[in-house]
């Protein structure tokens, strides 16, 4: 996979995620509806915040690096509820 041809999906497929059935991050679309800055959309390295045509945000927790960027850049109280996933779940970086 040379870089020029790789899609974002392929990029994310290089990291391993052991997905838990419960979401560890929940985004309250109602709070996002009138957010004009949308910092999370640009900053999330996994691009998990996707704006919808009706001005909302869809969030999918599955391929999350658990970095914390989103709750730190979001300045709206109550928009993001953020926890670590259950032990043993979530991102797993590889050993050689």
């Amino acid at each position, binding site marked *: 996979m*040379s870089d020029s041809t790789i899609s974002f999906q392929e990029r994310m497929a290089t990291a391993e995620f052991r997905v838990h059935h419960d979401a560890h991050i929940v985004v309250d679309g109602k709070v996002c509806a009138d957010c004009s800055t949308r910092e999370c959309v640009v900053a999330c390295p996994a691009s998990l915040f996707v704006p919808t045509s009706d001005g909302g945000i869809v969030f999918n927790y599955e391929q999350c690096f658990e*970095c914390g960027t989103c709750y*730190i850049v979001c300045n709206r109280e109550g928009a993001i509820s953020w*926890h*670590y996933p259950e032990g043993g779940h979530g*991102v*797993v*970086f*590889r050993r050689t």
Partner: protein
Amino acid sequence: MSQPDVDVVVVGGGPAGSCAAIVAARAGLSVVLLERGPFPGSKNMYGGVVYPRILDELIPNWWEEAPIQRWVTRRSTMMLTDTQALTVDFRSEAWGKPPYNGATAFRPDWDHWLAGYAEAAGAQLLTDTTVVGLIRDAKGAVVGVRTDRPDGDLTARVVIACDGVNSFLAKEAGLYEHADAKHFTLGVKETLSLPKEVIDERFAVRDRHGVDIEILGGTGKVNGGGFLYTGLDTLAVGVVLKLPKLAAQQQRPEQLVAGLKAHPAIAPLVQGAELKEYSAHLIPEAGLTMMPKMTTSGMLVAGDAAALCLAAGIWLEGVNFAMASGMYAGEAAVEAVHAGDVSENGLRGYQRRLSDTFVLKDHRKLRRAPELVLSDRVQHLYPGMIANVAERMFHVDNPHPKPGVRRILAQERKKAGVRRRDLLRDGWTGFRSFG
């Protein structure tokens, strides 16, 4: 109070946590080391260079066993504009021999290796276990942690929080005043695979020798920096980005990495290398400005959880600061448990050790450096100005005679719109920090 389950609970199997557990367990205390990932290191990423000399005491001849990729014998600092690159390149053969200096290593390998010493010392490692909160007594002293396991409460005389940059434990204990986006940078990295011989040739190194390149000015309009490190048959290339600027510039992290990789000075180095793993992690960037209180009754905070990572432009060192602070937290816990006083006062040996060693000495010395390096002038004006000075000095423009350096300097400073006063002030700050 009834007898606690163990003497010490260490939260987080990163470099800070493992060193704390090694010290406490070797002193004969009962120690549990909790890690939320399936193995220590599984959640952890960084740029790529460890400076392990602090391990001399804990693990003599650590270099014979440590899972390193290459010994860094060549260190470059690059300044980039869109079309120019100025590099200061240093090599030392001494760095390729014991006791070495820096080494590239993968964190899942390194952290897993180090945690093995904690287990060997008698600490009980529990992986797949997320700590979800603190247990406190009526007076507010920390007396244990809650985990997400069934019946997962664990009481201890001392809790050592080594839970990394987001440290929910330090926050829950009220040790951080606030978390401000401007105190953090986001690191994104691509691990690329490339045959060893190709790396050796491109980077002009042999055997297990490797290269560390720190890059200023390669992140477009976003304030930050870049890095490129050689593994044995991999490259690590990535950027470190100041958070508030990122959204304002509407540039996504992976686009900025792509931009760096496409730079004329970088592209030939990474050409043909294939993406093996994409990853991201936060860095506590602001040093002393953001450091929390690190001791409270029954609890110590070490490593990134206490913002002890040193991020000062040409230096990005966190693992050594984490290992050292973990060690000192372990020592202070041992002292306090033996003395039977785990109050804030009983644990004060931790702060003293931090103050007396490089951990806080380096931070004090470099306290202005993070802000200077991430300032708009250093990020967006100086690289172009300095590169232009170099270009004009080395450009042979016959039949014109060579201009004097002073004149070039003055002209380029004006052209870049840098006021002399600001240049002098930044130079002075830089001199006092780095000099």
